[in-house]
């Protein structure tokens, strides 16, 4: 449980948000061309990092907008919050 600084609404309780998993997994441009292995990679395989992870969140009980976040999953410390489409911070 922690506070999240929504880029649209400001600081709110984490329970208002829903997590959307690992960020920057690009949707295949030509789905019909994909092999089974590539589909598995896109749909299921995750890095599931213990440490700093880039992830998607949705302010489900607020503005309902999606955004990205950089969080350390070993201690839930948040390093950055940025809007969809923006470049991820390098550090």
């Amino acid at each position, binding site marked *: *449980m922690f506070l999240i600084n929504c880029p649209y609404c400001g600081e709110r309780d*984490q*329970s208002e948000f*829903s*997590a959307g*998993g690992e960020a920057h997994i690009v949707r295949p441009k030509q789905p019909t061309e994909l092999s*089974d*292995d590539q*589909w*598995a*990679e896109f*749909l*299921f*395989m*995750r*890095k*599931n*990092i*213990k440490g700093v*992870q880039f*992830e998607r969140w949705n302010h489900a009980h607020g503005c309902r907008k999606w955004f990205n976040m950089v969080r350390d*999953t*070993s*201690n*839930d410390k948040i390093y950055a919050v940025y809007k969809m489409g923006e470049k991820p911070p390098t550090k």
Partner: protein
Amino acid sequence: MKNKYSIFSIIKNAFSYNENWQRAWRDPEPKKEYDAIIIGGGGHGLATAFYLAKKHNMTNIAVVEKGWIGGGNTGRNTTIIRSNYLWDASAGLYDHALKIWEGLSQELNYNVMFSQRGVMNLAHNLQDVRDLKRRTHANRLNGIDAVWLNTEEVKKFCPIINTSPDIRYPVLGGTLQRRAGTARHDAVAWGYARGADAMGVDIIQNCEVKGIKRNGDSVEGVETTKGFIKTKKIGVVAAGHSSVIANMVDLKLPLESKPLQALVSEPVKPIIDTVVMSNAVHAYVSQSDKGELVIGAGTDAYVSYTQRGSHDVVEGTLKAILELYPIFSRMKMLRQWGGIVDICPDASPIISKTHIKGLYFNCGWGTGGFKATPGSGDLFAHTIANDEPHKLNADFNINRFVSGDLVDEHGAAAVAH
């Protein structure tokens, strides 16, 4: 040679003020090389080592554990054992475990306090009723005991449940598996550790794996905090930290690790002599032999390795518990804790070879691995020893996420996560 535990050993040791009990397992330094190394000294890992030694004659093996044995999810779960899963593959897997549970205390010469007090799953809406009835039929076709109870029968089986039609989610019935129940979770780890150790398995605690050494497509050994250990076969049974190990060899797994919480109340006199679970309101409760109510909450809905969990999750669970059991309204909670569970997209485990020769994974048990401990160890030992799966775990390979042949058990996970 280990001394056998018996009533005579209890009497004999009483005369010496219980000061001469033998150590239950040794505390060895790692050798330079083993025939196989199991990463993770929880119930599943220790059971794997036990059956490798017992059934496959592999005694030159080691279990490496970063903390102490049974200090992870083995000591953090709510000790529930059942096998009432929907699909044939799962029924085979979980009932295999349940059958081993039934003779486990004798097999280990260690009382795991297995108690077949029954597990009841409640239905609160029409869809629940349909799903649970369907599951009852599926179970019976697979030879697993299951019965459907109507509301009156639920009340008779567990009188403290509020079956009034006026509550927010009224009880419309439930299923009961009488062979299901609970066991003492620590004893399972200790019993397997003692049994494996007696056959020569080295259990190395406080030894964290830092890397896996590869030579082309096969493994050569593990880098640990106690130095490099050579081996040709590595079985990874690291639960919530499976992905951490997988990332060491650039292997991606279909897992997400999340904190799952449980809590216990102050101890009270016997009030609930079974296990009651409810998917729709997300609450389950049983009573330990010490008298504490053992309550399972949900997972946090985001990846985290923090081993704690959020307060709102506990709050939601306790609200549901109070609605179903108004008698508990003045109970005080004593302890709350979290464990990191590795969840698969289809809520079924992975017991599998990998594309790297000599590297095996037993993971993805998610929120319900304890019940499968003996079966999981047995089948994983078979997979490691023969370099191919047993027929009971053949469906639980990693490739099912490529082929699409998933074993979807979200409905049988007892409470939704």
